[in-house]
């Protein structure tokens, strides 16, 4: 169903659906602005007790009536992929209903829905209904405290988008990778057995020293000062335009996202310094896309840590994969503190780097102007 057929009216879509509606499994009405909700619901339901929908994409019909949206969800228990991006009819109650009604849910996109911005922190607190979710997008709607539940109840999560959420803080990322005491205490005791070879290591947990982890070990009794971290299966993470975040958030993610392929942290401004990035990036060898737009405090050190070392050492042995081997796209817009030498080394060193964005455009001139006003007068020039 293609939305750009502007010579086809919604009523003709309904006519087609009335004949075949109850058999439709994948319905993609992306871009359709005005949909007749009741007729759509009735044609998809037909005479059955529930629709057969597996995939539903209503992105674009902003004013889809809330009541009919709820009815449609209640009758579609087989849904695996739902996209309701931008719909004003999406409320907290609807998100909870989706969790209760669709046990096979794998993909949920409720980003930029005005009414749930921010979401209630206990939205994803039910332990059983969100188990199968692998892709979640709550851009613009994430609130404080919600990441803890997401981390605990969605163990297979591969893609998470919490961008454009002004309420998100570094502590939320810390709680995202936190481990409950009931889990880490026995795991730490097993570490002793590991050394004597009596058991295999647990891949979902890792113990870090306080320097690596960025926090003190005092909060974790029973681990002799080591900090337990959950190792997630995230491949795609977007934290762009979350203005309260700093590079400490990256430090908390170090060693917790080894499969990361796409990392976006654009638009953060002066909160993003080198430290956290230098802790995180070397631990993501599969990184393909990195977006650090408007990070005007980072220095060459970040660029240099992205350059992989030579593939073969003096004896001809190949090394393990390092960050930069897979790097294809890098956005460093407005990173004015970088030098040519570092960028040149990057271009020469990363074999797959095809898209490089090193321009001087920024998404928030206002934040930059505020920062400039605070600089002392001798340092007033920026470019």
């Amino acid at each position, binding site marked *: 169903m293609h939305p750009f057929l502007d010579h086809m009216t919604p009523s003709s879509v309904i006519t087609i659906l009335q004949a075949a509606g109850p058999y439709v499994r994948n319905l993609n009405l992306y871009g359709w602005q005005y949909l007749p909700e009741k007729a759509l619901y009735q044609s998809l339901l037909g005479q059955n007790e529930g629709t057969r929908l597996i995939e539903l994409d209503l992105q674009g019909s902003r004013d889809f009536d809330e009541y009919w949206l709820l009815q449609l969800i209640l009758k579609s228990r087989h849904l695996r992929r739902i996209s309701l991006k931008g719909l004003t009819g999406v409320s907290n109650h609807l998100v909870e209903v989706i969790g209760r009604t669709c046990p096979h849910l794998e993909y949920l996109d409720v980003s930029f829905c005005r009414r749930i911005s921010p979401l209630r922190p206990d939205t994803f607190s039910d332990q059983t209904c969100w188990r199968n979710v692998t892709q979640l997008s709550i851009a613009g709607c994430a609130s404080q405290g919600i990441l803890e539940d997401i981390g605990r109840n969605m163990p297979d999560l591969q893609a998470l988008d919490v961008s454009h959420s002004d309420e998100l803080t570094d502590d939320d990322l810390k709680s995202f990778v936190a481990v409950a005491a009931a889990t880490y205490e026995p795991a730490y005791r097993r570490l002793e057995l590991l050394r004597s070879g009596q058991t295999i290591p647990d891949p979902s947990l890792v113990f870090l020293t306080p320097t690596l982890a960025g926090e003190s070990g005092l909060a974790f009794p029973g681990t002799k000062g080591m900090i337990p971290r959950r190792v997630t299966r995230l491949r795609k993470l977007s934290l762009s335009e979350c203005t309260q975040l700093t590079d400490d958030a990256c430090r908390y993610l170090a060693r917790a996202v080894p499969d990361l392929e796409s990392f976006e942290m654009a638009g953060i401004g002066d909160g993003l310094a080198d430290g956290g990035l230098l802790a995180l990036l070397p631990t993501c060898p599969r990184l393909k896309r990195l977006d650090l737009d408007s990070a005007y405090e980072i220095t060459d050190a970040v660029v240099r840590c992205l350059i992989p070392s030579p593939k073969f050492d003096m004896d001809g042995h190949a090394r393990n994969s390092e960050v930069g081997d897979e790097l294809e796209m890098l956005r460093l817009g407005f990173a004015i503190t970088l030098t040519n030498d570092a960028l040149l080394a990057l271009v020469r060193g990363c074999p797959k780097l*095809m898209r490089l964005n090193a321009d001087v455009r920024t998404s928030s001139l206002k934040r930059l102007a505020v920062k400039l006003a605070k600089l002392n007068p001798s340092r007033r020039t920026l470019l």
Partner: protein
Amino acid sequence: MNDVLVKEFIRKRGRGASLSVVDCRSVSRNVVEALEPTTRPRNGWRGWQAAPLAYYEKTRSKALGREECSDLPVLQSFWTWNRVPRADRTFVLPGRRGDTVINADELAALGRSLHADERGCVIM
């Protein structure tokens, strides 16, 4: 980000690469103009949804602009930005009894109308 870097990137990465140095003061006009024959100013693609963006594609023997839909490397800079054709430029449709001059919206509408009288499902 300066000239040497731009030249090195385009030369090393070749086709499929994309480099954006918009508003970088250290990138001079010389390097952009030197690379002009081997790069394209925008990442253009074919498809009737791209019609409003009017990506230029060389279809007739007379070249009216720079090719935007091939797989040459994309170089975006202040100097190429200046030279991207305007969105309100006119297109000339040659006809037997004289040429018709239309704009981008009309061109898109013309493209859509060519499929309008297909009965039944439209195969995308």
